[in-house]
């Protein structure tokens, strides 16, 4: 397993993508740090960029990587190694590189210009989202034989969770404005990893007061130990579920 991971990592690090992505993250972080001195404003801007960029890049990169490495996967499957290990080494290498890019990209400017706990949570959310979308992308990849189709499915995951879902939630809240919606909204937030990440982060920055009664309810929930535990658990489920589904399909897949 570790041997396989070693070779998978070696191959992925050699591709120029990892370097470019890290560089891009560093540039984004540096430019935002230059604009403002206020730490909470910085983390808010970083959050907004991250919530758009990270899922998109993770989904696209993981899908293309899966198909570019199909030869390697086939080669490994004819060797005396477990199918599970072949799959895990591939996906872990992708997740590792994506997370490393965020940690270095956002972390280096933080070390230079200071950070607080909210920025660390931001890093955690970034890694979490990378894992979730890499998992979804691998799921899309193992379900199809065609690279273009798989990229299409991965992109629709991104569009759905980043854009369509929010519209749907807004519509629901707007049309049911006469009812108490705190708990249903909370449940809806849990069904979308991007929203979950956003809410966890927003609750760290004292701006929830701007969000009215629901904001206060959220603040109360996500501020409590139970809320933090539950929301991290849900995030964790989001990280595990697509990967394990993809692995189940991979184990039965024909090459």
């Amino acid at each position: 397993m570790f041997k396989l991971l070693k070779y998978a990592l070696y191959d992925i690090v050699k591709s120029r993508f990892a370097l470019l992505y890290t560089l891009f993250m560093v540039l984004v972080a540096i430019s935002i740090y230059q604009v403002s001195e206020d730490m909470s404003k910085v983390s808010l801007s970083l959050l907004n960029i991250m919530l758009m960029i990270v899922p998109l890049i993770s989904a696209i990169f993981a899908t293309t990587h899966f198909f570019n490495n199909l030869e390697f996967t086939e080669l490994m499957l004819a060797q005396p190694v477990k199918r599970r290990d072949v799959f895990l080494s591939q996906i872990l290498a992708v997740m590792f590189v994506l997370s490393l890019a965020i940690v270095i990209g956002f972390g280096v400017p933080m070390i230079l210009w200071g950070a607080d706990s909210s920025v660390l949570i931001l890093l955690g959310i970034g890694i979490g989202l990378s894992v979730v979308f890499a998992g979804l992308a691998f799921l899309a990849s193992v379900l199809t034989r065609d690279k273009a189709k798989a990229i299409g499915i991965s992109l629709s995951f991104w569009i759905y969770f980043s854009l369509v879902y929010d519209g749907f939630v807004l519509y629901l809240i707007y049309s049911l404005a006469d009812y108490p919606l705190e708990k249903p909204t909370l449940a809806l937030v849990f069904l979308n990893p991007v929203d979950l990440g956003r809410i966890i982060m927003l609750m760290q920055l004292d701006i929830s007061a701007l969000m009215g009664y629901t904001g206060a309810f959220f603040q109360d929930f996500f501020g409590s130990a139970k809320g933090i535990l539950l929301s991290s658990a849900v995030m964790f489920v989001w990280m595990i579920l697509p990967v394990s589904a993809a692995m189940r399909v991979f184990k039965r897949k024909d090459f």
Partner: protein
Amino acid sequence: MISVQQIHKKFGKLEVLKDFNLEFESGKSYALMGPNGSGKTTLIKIILGMVIPNAGDILVKGNSIKGSFAYRSDIGYMPQIGRYPDNIKIGQLFSMMQDMRPDIKKYDMELASEFGLMDMLDKPMRTLSGGTRQKVSASLAFMFRPDILILDEPTAGLDPIAVEILKNKIIQEREKGRLILITSHILSELDELTNHAIYIHEGKVFFNDTTESLKDITGESKFTTAIARLMEWSLKKKQIKTELSHV
């Protein structure tokens, strides 16, 4: 040594193998023949566990391959088209494969050195020609002295000198009592290398016996014409079937 038991495989609606049974014994060398798309490569991939059958089982050395992976260290496999990661170098590929089999310490580098691969160990795979890739595949298949050798169109794309080297190696391994399974469309080559003929037609075993009895049955003295006769028969059988179905 390999026992294929009632294998059934469908790709979508296409039935590639139907109720497929075969026995491969050690010390024999088999020629696996059949028209394009008759299921030869699928059968090989099922034995290797790369394709999972819808029904049936495969026993390698008496053990089912379901959920097992260790048995693959007994198999040297040379694919039809060897595809390797672009960034990896020949030397790294060799050491990676050796890393996968920690129990085996002594390697058979004879083919690699005869093919001249030892002088180009730091060449990345993407710069290699198709023939050189085939040489790499062949060297890997023989490197660990496996008991079972599965060679899918081994000489396709190789130059005549390399073909001779590979043939000699196959004959040498055959004499050591290994099980050898070769698919090819070059019949003269199969005549030289194998002593057992298996002909697959539309997902079923059409013929399975020694080369001598093949010649006896068809009444031909040459292997190539005997196979040609076999192909005629298999096509005739199909014609009769379709004629009947139109009645």
